[in-house]
C-alpha cells in the first residue's frame, strides 16, 4: 500500500491553492458590490441635485403631473421632449403587465411539467423531458424575442383579432418561454428531493400515485415550487431583449393586457446609448437601473429563503 506523504512544501501549496480559490469566490461578491455602488452612485443626483430635481424629483416620477397649463395632469414618459417628462408609472405598469402574463403562462406549464416529470414519467422519458425543457433556458433571449416579433405576434393577432400587434400578451408569452425552465428545474428538483420514506409511507397506507403526488409530495415541496416561481418572476422583470423586441415599447398607462407596453429594462436598453452623460435623462435611467437591482435582489433573497425552508423541511427540521 502506498503511503500518502505530506511534506511541509505541499502544505504551503495547499495554503496558496486554498487562498486562490477563495479569491475567486470573493471576486464575484466584490464585482456585484462594485456594480451596485456604481449604479447607485449615478442615480444619487435624483435626491441631491436641485437642477435634476426640477424635472425628475421622486414625487414627480410617481404621481400624475400637469405638464402644460390648461391640460389635464397625467403620467407621461417623454424624456427627450421640450418639456421632459419622466413619469415612471407607465414603465412600472408595463413591466408588471409583461411579468404577470409571463407568470400566468409559465407557472402552470412549469409546475405541471415538473409534477409529471418527477412523479409520473417513466425514468427513460424523464431523462429526455428534463434536459429538453432546460434547453429552453439555453435559447438566447434575442432569438425568443425575434420569434415573438415575427411569428407569435402575427399568430396572436390573427387568432384573437388584436388591435395592437405587439403587446403585453405577446411579450409576456415569449417571456414565459424564458421563465418556464427556471420554474420547472427548481420545482422538479424540489419534488424529486422529497424523501423516499414519505412516499413509501403514503403508498403503504394505500394511496395511489395521484394521491401520493398531490397529498404528500406536492405539499412537502411547496417551498421549492415557491422558490421557482419567485426566481422566475425575477427573471421576467429583469429580462430585456425579449420585451424590447416583442412589446411595442409604447409607454401607456392602461389596464388592458392587449395594449403595447414599455418596461424598465427595455427603456434602459433603448435609451442609455445616446443620453448626455450626467444629465437628467442619464440619471433617471440609472435610477431605474437601481430600482431593478434592488427589486431583483429582494426577489432572489425571497427565493433563497424558500429554498432554505425546503432543505430544512426535507431534513425533518420543520417546526
Amino acid at each position, binding site marked *: 500500500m502506498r503511503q500518502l506523504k505530506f511534506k511541509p512544501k505541499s502544505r504551503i501549496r495547499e495554503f496558496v491553492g486554498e487562498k486562490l480559490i477563495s479569491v475567486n469566490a470573493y471576486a464575484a461578491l466584490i464585482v456585484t458590490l462594485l456594480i451596485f455602488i456604481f449604479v447607485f452612485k449615478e442615480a444619487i443626483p435624483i435626491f441631491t441635485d436641485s437642477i435634476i430635481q426640477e424635472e425628475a424629483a421622486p414625487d414627480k416620477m410617481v404621481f400624475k403631473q400637469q405638464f402644460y397649463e390648461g391640460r389635464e395632469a397625467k403620467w407621461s*414618459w417623454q424624456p427627450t421632449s421640450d418639456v421632459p417628462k419622466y413619469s415612471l408609472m407607465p414603465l412600472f405598469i408595463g413591466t408588471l403587465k409583461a411579468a404577470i402574463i409571463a407568470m400566468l403562462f409559465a407557472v402552470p406549464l412549469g409546475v405541471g411539467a415538473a409534477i409529471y416529470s418527477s412523479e409520473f414519467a417513466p425514468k427513460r422519458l424523464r431523462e429526455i423531458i428534463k434536459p429538453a425543457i432546460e434547453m429552453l433556458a439555453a435559447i438566447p433571449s434575442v432569438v425568443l424575442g425575434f420569434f415573438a416579433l415575427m411569428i407569435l405576434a402575427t399568430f396572436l393577432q390573427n387568432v384573437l383579432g388584436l388591435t395592437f400587434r405587439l403587446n403585453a400578451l405577446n411579450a409576456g408569452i415569449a417571456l414565459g418561454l424564458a421563465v418556464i425552465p427556471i420554474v420547472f428545474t427548481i420545482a422538479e428538483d424540489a419534488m424529486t428531493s422529497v424523501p423516499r420514506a414519505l412516499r413509501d409511507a403514503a403508498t403503504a397506507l394505500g394511496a395511489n400515485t395521484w394521491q401520493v403526488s398531490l397529498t404528500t409530495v406536492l405539499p412537502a415541496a411547496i417551498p421549492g415550487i415557491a422558490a421557482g416561481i419567485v426566481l422566475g418572476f425575477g427573471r421576467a422583470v429583469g429580462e430585456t431583449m425579449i420585451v424590447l423586441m416583442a412589446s411595442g*415599447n409604447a409607454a401607456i398607462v392602461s389596464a388592458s393586457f392587449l395594449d403595447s407596453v414599455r418596461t424598465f429594462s427595455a427603456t434602459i436598453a*433603448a435609451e442609455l446609448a445616446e443620453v448626455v452623460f450626467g444629465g437628467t435623462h442619464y440619471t433617471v435611467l440609472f435610477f431605474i437601473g437601481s430600482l431593478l437591482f434592488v427589486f431583483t435582489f429582494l426577489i432572489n433573497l425571497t427565493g433563497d429563503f424558500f429554498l432554505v425552508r425546503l432543505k430544512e423541511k426535507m431534513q425533518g427540521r420543520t417546526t
Partner: protein
Amino acid sequence: MRTILTIAVMLTLLAGILLAGTTITIKGSDTLVRLGQRWAEEYMKKNKDVVIQVSGGGSGTGIAALLNGSTDICEASRDMKEKEYKLAEKKGIKPYRVSVALDGIAVFLHKANPVTELSFAQLKGIYTGAITNWKEIGGKDTRIILYGRENNSGTYAFFKKKVLNKEDYSEYTQTLPGTAAVVNAVSKDKHGIGYGGIAWAKGVKYAAVRKSDSTAAISPSVETVSDGTYPISRDLYWFFNGVPTGELKKLLNWALSEEGQKLAAESDYVPLPKERALANMVP
C-alpha cells in the same frame, strides 16, 4: 523576441502614420457617418498619403468637437444652434457650413391601405394622437396603429421638429429600433403607419405628403428630395473651421464632385442636385 517584434511593428505603424503626411479627422452625425466612411475609404484609395479617421457620436458631439478644435470636419444632420454659434465666436472658431448630401423621411403605409396622401396637419394629428381612426382621413373605420423610432434617434427628432412642431408623440406610438424594424412592422400591420429613411421601403408603400392644403402631394423619391419638392427632407452638413484650404478643400470638392455624389447615392443617401453641388465647392 516578442518584445522586439512588437516594437518593430509599432515603429512601422508609427512611421506609416508619420510618412502619410496629412491626417484628417471627421466626427459627428450618426446619420452621416456611413457616408463619411465610404467617402474616406474611396478618397484614401486615391490619395495614399492621406489618412482620414471617421467617427460618429451624433451631431451634437461633432459640433462640440469642432468647437474644441479636436476635429477637422464636423458632420451634422442639423444646423448649429444659436448657442453653439455664440460659443464658436467666443472660442475664435469660424464655422463654415456646406451641404454635402440630402436626406428624406418617408411615411410608410401598409400596401392595402386605401389612403394614399397625407398633409402635414393630418400627420401631426395622427402622430400626436388627435386623429386615431383611419376613417377621419379617408380610410377604413379602424384604429391607426403608430410606429416610430426610439427617442434617441435623429430621425425621431427630425420628424418631431418638422412635422409635429415639437409636440410630443402620442403615448401609443410603438417605438422600434431602426427604420428596417419600422418598415417590417408596417408591412405586417394593415392599419399601421411609420416613418423612416426613403431608401428602406420594401413591402410597404409611401404616402405622398403635402405641406398644406393648397400645395400638391409629393411622393418621396430621390428626385423629389433632390429638387426640394418633397417637404420632409433635410440637408446633411459638413462644418469646417473657416473656409477649408489644402487637403480639406480637396476632400470637400471631391465629395461634392460627380464621383463623390454617386457614392452618396450608392450608399442610400440622396445626392445634391448638380448645380447645388457645384455651387457648394470651394474655389
